């Protein structure tokens, strides 16, 4: 039987020991009316070779286009060692490290991860991961509101340049708790400083920014950070962790730095994988650690005085604090953190910096090359590694034309940013060669020339 080791003799011996005649009797506490036998709608089992053939034929249909999409997930090269190590059975098939003595591998790794995230962001404490960047942002909002509990502030100012899908997810998650996200408008693709509410103090729990923004632009983080501090608002920074190898870390924004930073960990060695699993990171100032959601690992000593690692501050968590926990999160994205930790160890600060810089340079090259075409202009500069391209005709049709030519050219901004007119968001990571950029440009020229699009 697939993955069940029992021989008929085993089964008989075990039933006899229990004193039963059949396996059916094991279920005699289920009321007869509720007993089911098998499933309609589930096919018969197949052998491993057949499953391999099936999945190979499915996978062969996917992922063939040349990728210039970013918008929160990025096509970076992942060194072979990352997943060779992360996929080792001892990491892969372990549970959450509740028994610390039997889980020092996972625990030390998480401690190293926390250390790396603190180093990258310039903050003091990190948890062991959240589900993804969007839920990390939602948790950051909840954390900010909890930190303002006594002040009773349940509204958060959010830049319109912060990922629209992050904002939507956060709204889904915080809605039940009557927390409101208040959008701040943009000018030139960045938060409009003139639109900052003069009376923010006392009204809002936090200001949330994304750097680089969803639109690839760079916010004036020092100034915005100082403004938030002056108004008594916490500052929530949403950052692509890879970009922090080049950009100023949120811990150093303005005079005081951000209070909470969070974002999507996928750029750190996680495959695109059609959307997940990725992982959310969240870091904060030490004074906020008791509001932190999720697991945290601490270093301590054992009875012999030797250093060791263990889950700590568990009184924040659902299995102890139940309805008063900082979050309901239990299972997180551990294996992804394993991969990210290995990735960061392999690349180091310099490797990350070079990767990030190459993404920036490639996107700059892409933008310049495309903007040379009639009907294409760069909307905002400077940008980090994503660029908004405004078009002189409907973006959806252009993207469709490019898709037919094997190019995943970017995201249509029409739904989220209608004010930009027809516009797409494109990205060229370090994986895109000059030849790839040329393919994109030639295809775009062809699409724009053709009668396919009005």
């Amino acid at each position, binding site marked *: 039987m697939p993955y*069940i080791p029992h021989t008929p003799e085993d089964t008989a011996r075990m039933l006899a*020991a229990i004193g039963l005649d059949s396996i059916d009797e094991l279920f005699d506490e289920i009321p007869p009316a509720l007993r089911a036998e098998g499933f309609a709608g589930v096919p018969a089992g197949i052998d491993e070779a057949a499953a391999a053939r099936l999945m190979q034929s499915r996978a062969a249909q996917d992922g063939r286009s040349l990728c210039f999409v970013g918008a929160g997930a990025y096509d970076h090269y992942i060194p072979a060692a990352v997943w060779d190590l992360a996929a080792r059975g001892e990491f892969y098939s372990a549970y959450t490290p509740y028994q610390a003595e039997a889980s020092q591998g996972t625990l030390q790794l998480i401690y190293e991860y926390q250390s790396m995230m603190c180093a990258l962001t310039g903050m003091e404490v990190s948890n062991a991961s959240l589900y993804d960047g969007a839920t990390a942002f939602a948790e950051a909002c909840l954390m900010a509101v909890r930190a303002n509990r006594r002040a009773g502030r349940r509204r958060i100012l959010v830049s319109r340049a912060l990922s629209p899908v992050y904002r939507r997810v956060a709204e889904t998650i915080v809605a039940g708790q009557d927390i409101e996200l208040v959008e701040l408008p943009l000018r030139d693709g960045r938060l409009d400083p003139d639109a900052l509410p003069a009376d923010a103090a006392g009204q809002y729990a936090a200001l949330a920014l994304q750097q680089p923004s969803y639109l690839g632009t760079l916010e004036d983080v020092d100034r915005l950070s100082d403004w938030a501090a002056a108004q008594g608002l916490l500052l929530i920074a949403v950052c692509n962790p890879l970009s922090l190898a080049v*950009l100023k870390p949120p811990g150093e924004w303005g005079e005081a730095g951000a209070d909470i930073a969070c974002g999507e960990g996928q750029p750190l060695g996680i495959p695109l994988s059609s959307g997940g699993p990725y992982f959310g990171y969240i870091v904060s100032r030490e004074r906020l650690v008791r509001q932190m959601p999720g697991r945290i690992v601490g270093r301590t000593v054992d009875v012999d005085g030797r250093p060791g690692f263990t889950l700590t501050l568990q009184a924040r968590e659902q299995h102890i604090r139940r309805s008063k926990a900082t979050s309901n999160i239990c299972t997180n994205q551990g294996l992804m953190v394993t991969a990210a930790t290995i990735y960061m160890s392999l690349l180091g600060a310099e490797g990350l910096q070079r990767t990030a810089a190459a993404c920036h340079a490639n996107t700059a090259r892409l933008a310049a090359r495309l903007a040379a075409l009639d009907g294409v202009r760069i909307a905002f500069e400077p940008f980090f590694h994503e660029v908004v391209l405004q078009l002189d005709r409907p973006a959806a049709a252009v993207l469709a034309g490019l898709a037919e030519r094997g190019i995943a050219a970017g995201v249509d901004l029409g739904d989220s940013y209608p004010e930009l007119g027809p516009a797409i968001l494109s990205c060229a990571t370090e994986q895109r060669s000059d030849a790839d950029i040329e393919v994109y440009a030639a295809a775009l020229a062809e699409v724009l020339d053709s009668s396919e699009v009005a």
Partner: protein
Amino acid sequence: MSPEMPLREDLIFEQSAAGRGSPALAPASGEAPGLPPGLLRSVPAALPEVSELQVVRHYTRLSQLNYSIDTHFYPLGSCTMKYNPKVCNRLAMLPGFLGRHPLAPEADGQGVMACLYELQAMLAAVTGMQAFSLTPMAGAQGEFAGVAMIMAYHRSRGDHERREIIVPDAAHGTNPATATMCGCSVREIPTDADGDIDLPALRAAVGPQTAGIMLTNPSTLGVFERRIREVADIVHEAGGLLYYDGANLNAILGRALPGAMGFDVIHVNLHKTFSTPHGGGGPGSGAVGVGRRLEPFLPLPIVGRENGRYRWLGEAERPQSIGRLSAFMGNTGILLRAYVYMRLLGAEGMRRVADYATLNANYLMHRLREAGFRLAYPARRASHEFIVTLKDLHRETGVTAMDVAKALLDRGFHAPTTYFPLLVPECLLIEPTETESPETLDAFAEALAEIRELARSDPEQLRRAPLSTPVRRLDDVRAARQLDLAWRPAD
């Protein structure tokens, strides 16, 4: 290893040397002209600078410090630590799936979408629900989706006063925590001496404030809730809905359908019943299924099918949805693993899961009863797990469930879940799963019996356990008081 050679591994930071590193792993140039200098980082992040060999050796050694399914029996109750077939991992990581950007054109993702579409249907079939959304990224997020849907349903009917969620006292911590996250208040109801819900208490608890009830069945006490239909009737009559926490689905797969018990919404932990790996803490997947009433509220996106093509259904098609729970569509790679697992087992193989999970649990319970252990619910059948209480042993010898757990580590077994559910004192919640052989169960029972003897003859020895692990018992108090949560470079 010998006492001179503790199984200890320096932090990767402590192995760092400035200027080391693996240049073959990154592009040659690090120029980023055109970025405003004021926005740049001034000092490189204090990440380790180590060679690829150092990285490989370090993380290989760290991995060896773990207990895991692939190395040890891991009877962690409520966690369903069964074997994760290697092929599921392999096939979910085929290049076409792995390299695809989630926002690439749909035409470029028909393969993965076909799998997800079929997975939605198979999950509906094995739970007896109407429709599924795969987007929740773990059980707790599935719970969130479920309670949010219950709330959205009441709201859609103008029923704004229903903001209370009932949970049994034995419930998993995520249940009450989820209710809070959804803006609900939580009411706990007691369990009777046999582990069933106290029906009079439930009747007394329901009312116009009742949004719903969250249950697992079999419950976290390791027994099947026999009067589940009555529970359903009481809650439904009061206007509430029933949430099924599917963490224990392994116990009844193919033997009973939650949909038939009267549940309105369910989450399924694919990382438990459908054998996707736990990864040292995740990722998982908490796919949610609903009956017809709640279908409009399912979280997005969902895979639809039209004219033989698959496509994502979003806000346009499902305007009443509670919304999105992730930036893209959840833990796709985990979903693919579960899909392969279900296809490998098929209907027949899946039915056997509950059969043998239950057989293993009842057999092991029997062996431990024979060895003199006290069961929390001695009159009941075990489901896929069962509870031993060490209350008596503790009283007699001072040995705690924690001591026993640590002594098991010394004998090459991961410990069962300890001190959960909270209402059973000094408890061990033991879940062997169907993938373990009877020989392993026998060896485990013998180890526990030996430990029990030792508790009487030499309790001090147990209090010193574990002795053979890379570290011995850790100072948790110090960990929480003298916080050391990140390595920092010496100034």
